[in-house]
Structure formats: C-alpha cells, structure tokens
C-alpha cells in the first residue's frame, strides 16, 4: 500500500472474480464502501463481509477459504511467515485465492498502486469522474520480472459525452471496472496474491 488507490484496486480485482460467478469474502475491513463495490460490478449477494473478526482472524480466514473462492483479509498486524504459508497451503488445497490487504511474506504476486491521479475536478467546478492509476506487479515464478500497467478506473464515457442522470439512477452494473491503457501484459494471478 505505497500510494492511495489500493482499496479501489482491491475492489476491481474482486469485481473481475465476482462477475465470473465466484463467491467472495472480505475480512477485517469495516471501512470498505459497499456502494463502490456494487458500482464496480461486485455481486453483493455473493459477497460476505466479516468487519470485525476479533483476535482469531486467521481461523476465520481458514474457515472461509474452505468454501469461498476469493478471501480478502486485512491482517491486524504483521503476519508470521509460518501462518502465511499455512494459509497459502490451505488456499492451494481448496482451490481458492487468498488476498492479504497489507504485507504478506512469501506472496506469489504483490500488486501495488504506484501512482493515482483523479480527473474531473477543477477549482469549484466539475466532479470526480475517473482516475488514472499505475499498478506495479512483482512476484515469484512467472511474475518475477515485475510489470507495470496504467489503468483508468472506473472506465467511463469520455468527458464531453455529458452526464446521464437516468443511467446513474439505474446504477449500470455491467460496466467494466478496469480498462488496460498501456502495453505491459497483465500478470497472471497465482493462488496467493499479496496487495
């Protein structure tokens, strides 16, 4: 979490999985905006939230990994390498994905939002419309060399298309949350992703 934009990146990641029909769970993030999640395209009826997992968050995560495809957790402190590998093994065995929002030793892929800039706001005019974000992926194995990609989030119509109030009211959820702008190829996600 070097720069801002990490939560949006997380939501965009989940949205891609959720639209493909996966079940998701988010542990220990009481401040996550569910409205933003819905706007990004996450199916809220397949998203479970455990805002306050208490001291035994790893037990909760392990239980969720048994049945849920993608589990996101914000650990309350640094994770010990032993616990990290135990959760990774559990995820690998069950065929699910564990995403830690924070530091995770031994993660297969680490995603970082390096730079993010909002568009649409001037002095006293406009509104926040979209942001340009640079995401850096580092990792092990196939993802070892590190890649960088530029995204627009959310991907809206061009500025001069005007604002469609009806469309907004309908909360058009079909809109893709992420669009790849620059050339670097997307990293392949392995079983464990550290963000």
């Amino acid at each position, binding site marked *: 979490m070097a*720069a*801002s*934009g*990490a*939560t*949006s990146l997380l*939501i965009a990641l989940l949205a891609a999985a959720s639209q493909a*029909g996966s*079940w998701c*769970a988010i542990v220990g993030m*009481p*401040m*996550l*905006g*569910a*409205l*933003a*999640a*819905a*706007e990004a395209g996450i199916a*809220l*009826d*397949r*998203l*479970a*939230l*455990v*805002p*306050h*997992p*208490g*001291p*035994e968050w790893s*037990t*909760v995560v392990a*239980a*969720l*990994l*048994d*049945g*849920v*495809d993608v589990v996101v957790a914000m650990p309350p402190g640094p994770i010990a390498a032993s616990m990290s590998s135990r959760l990774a093994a559990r995820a690998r065995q069950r065929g699910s994905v564990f995403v830690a929002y924070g530091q995770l030793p031994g993660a297969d892929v680490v995603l970082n939002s390096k*730079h*993010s800039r*909002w568009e649409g*706001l*001037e*002095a*006293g*005019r*406009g*509104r*926040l*419309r*979209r*942001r340009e974000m640079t995401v850096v992926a580092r990792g092990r194995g196939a993802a070892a060399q590190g890649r960088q990609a530029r995204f627009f989030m*959310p991907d809206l119509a061009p500025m001069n298309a005007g*604002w469609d109030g009806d469309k*907004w009211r309908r*909360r058009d959820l079909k809109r893709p949350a992420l669009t790849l702008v620059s050339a670097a190829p997307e990293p392949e996600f392995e079983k464990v992703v550290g963000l």
Partner: protein
Amino acid sequence: VSRTLLVWCPDWPIAAAGIVEGVPTFEPVVVIEANRVIACSAAARDEDIRLGLRRREAQSRCPQLHVIEHDDGRDARAFEPVVAMVEALAPGVEVVRPGVCALAARGPARYFGGEEAAAEHIVEQVAQGCAVEAQVGIAEGVFGAGLAARSGTIVRPGETTAFLTGFDIAAIGRDALVDLLRRLGIRTLGDFAALPAASVLARFGFDASLAHRLAAGLDERPLAVRVPPKDLDVSEVFEEPIERVDAAAFAARALAQRLHDTLAGHGLACTRLGIEALTERGEELHRVWRHDGLLTAAAIADRVRWQLDGWLHHRIGRPTAGIVRLRLVPDGVIAHAGLQLGLWGDVGAQRDRAHRAMTRVQGMLGPDAVVTAVLGGGRDAVDQVRLVPWGDERLPERPDEPPWPGRLPPPAPATVLVDPLPAEVLDATGARVGVTARLAVTGAPATVTIGAEPPVEVVGWTGPWPVDERWWAPAEASRRARFQVTLADDRALLLSLSGMQWSVEAIYD
C-alpha cells in the same frame, strides 16, 4: 342437535389490550374501529359509553378515557393461552372468534360428573391459569350456547327452543334482516321461529332461512375442531456434563437426526432453528439460527455442533460448567414441499459450500459477525448500504425509488470512514471556509488539515452538495454541505461541513 359448551370472555378486545399492552382494564377503556366504539370496559359503561359511539363523543362523556385502536391479531394472540387452558381440560375446541370458544359438552360432563361441575372447572381453570374472567353456557348448538353464556346459564336438555323464545330478534346478528323483521312486527326469536320455514325461505332467502333455523334452536352445524399445534421440540438430558467438543458433536448428531425425523414424520421442515443449552450451574444459552433454504439433518447437526463449539471455546462469556441439557426448537415451520435445487447443479454446490463456510464463521463469532450489504435509497454512502446478517432476508432499509436530491454522483468512495475525521479547511487568506445560508462558499478552499497532519494544498474542489435530512425528528436530523476535494498528494476526499465543523467523511481511495 348435540349439547355444546361455550366459553365466553366478556369484553375480549378490552381484556386482550390489558394482557398484551398492559392497559388498566378496571379504568374506563374503549376499543375503537373505524372511529366507532366496538368494545368498552365496565367502568366505561358506568360513564354512559355505549357501543357504536364516535370517538369524540365517547371522550366528551368521559375525559379520562383510554382509547385503544382495534387489532384482530392482538385479540387472537391473547386468546391463544385461554384456548390452551381449555384444551388442557377437554379436547376438541373450536375457536368461534377471539374471546369465544366452543366444545362438545358430553365429554367433560361425563368426566367431571355433570355439566355444572364441568362448567365450574373450566371457569376456574381459565381464571387461575390466565387471570381471565370467563362465563360458560351450555345448550344445544353453538348459537344457543352463545346466548346462554351471556347469562352463564345451563339450559336443560331439550329446552333450548323454549330458552331462545324470549330473546330480542337482534341476537341473530344480521342487521338488514333484523331491521326488516322489526318493521314487520317480529321482535323476538320466538316470533321469528313461529313463522313457517318455507315462507321464510321464499320471502327472505337462504341466509334468513339459516337464521330461522338458529332461532328455532336447530343449530346443526358440527364444531370445526381445531388441531392443537404439535410439540416438535426435541431435548436431551446428559448424565455426564458435556465439556468437550467431540462429545458435543456426537450429541448434536443424534439430536439433529431425531428432530429431523420428527419434522419429516409430520411432513414439515423448519427454516429457523433455536438451540438452547443449560449448564450444570444453571446458565441458559440460547441462539436462533436462520437459514434461507430448508434445514436438512446434516445442516441441523452442523449448526448444533458449531454452536456448541462456539460456546465451549468462546473466550468471553464462556459457560463456567459443562452442558447438561440440550434442546432444539424448530421455528418458522413450513410444509416440506421438497428442496428446489439450482437449474445447474454446479452453482448449487458452490453456493452450498460458501453457505457452509459463512455459517461456520457465524458459529465462531455470532450470527451478526458475517454480513452482506444491501443497497437502498439514501443520500450518502453510509445511508445507501444496509448490512444484513448472513442468511437473513435481503431487504433495503429505504426504497431506492424516490429521487434523493443531494445524492453524490458516482463513482462512490471506496473507503467510508466509520467515525469521520475532524479536519480544517482554509482559504488563501487563511480564513476558515464556510457556507452561507444560500449555499454560497465564502472562499475557495486552499489547504486542508486532517487531524494532526500538516496542511496539504488543494488542487481541485467542487461543491457544496447540501443535505438537510430529517429536520422533523430532532434526534436524527442532520444538516451538512459536502465537498469533493483533490489534494496535492493525489488523495481525493469527501469533506463535509456541519455546524461550522469540517470533517472527512470518506476517501476516494
């Protein structure tokens, strides 16, 4: 015509209001429906209040009157224990309406040694068990017994027709017909019964013909006996208190199978399950599990096991002794019409797997710890989201339908602060930025200071989006002006100004 025993609780809507809502029934009380008095207490009657008065008139006759709105559900609910009490003495009770129930007199009369003794027993049982005053009448047929109960009479066998003769014609309870008969000079049930049946049918129709038979004491309708609700609870008492999870799991499986067999035997299934445990030191633990499908034997066993696991391993609020009694109470019982699986089996399996995992976590942390978000109407990111415990019905708090002026346009902030951070917004001259009553901004924001951080320069800003919510309810009212701000360090914030205090509501993270 069979002898019928009828139990009548006078002024039942009043008594029900007393039981359910704690209204002092010895004071003047009336129950109102469609602005007319439909029941009044004895004290109200002494104040010259009669049925059919308007609310205003009743209040003018007795200023200290308690006025209660009529509620069928309340009357029926309060009557349920009375029926249960009567059923405890004699089976086969028909609830005629809330406040009145009837049963065949033959059984209790033989059992208690006479109709008088049976009537006394029932009145006493109801008075002691429910603290409700009741009167009993016995006659041939429900209609005759109902009139007999008004005066607490036991009509001798074969004398019902003679007993009914003297009653006013209004007792047949059909307003239009009563009015017509009065104008024809027929004032008592006896007069009406004396008319030839064929002529009554030809002149007044079927309903009047039925009333004619009632007036003649020929009430032949058999009692529609209510089937008492089945006792579906299962419980188990353990000689050795359970303290270990594996023992609990074993007990849970057996108990779950028994509950499931009981339910299946009655062709039922339950959607909610109450688990109650009693420990050696008398602590009672209780929790209700909800499920949006039907609970199978394995699902029941899992929930009981997780619950016991949670209770036995909980750090806080852990019982101080082992569990000696376990009871499963099925709730939300419905007829089992088979379980509908998803059209594509795979989706169902995945869903089941996810549900099991969530329910497992609910067992560890409590049912409210796992939630899902439901979107509804509202003006900011907190109001539009309602968190519902997993497995509950997903209903929004407010409808999405009406327009919500002042709602922020998308994209929504990804991080919504639970407790807004205090902030300070200054313009280029160093004065605090404010908003006038006409929503004009007093100066362009130049720097934002969040909490104890150093001030950050503002790159772009827009607003205000005013919100003036629930001004009619002072406790919930909120009046705010909101601004979107981008800062020099690439952050984008949602700021709000309320009562000259700036705060950070959300971060466009």
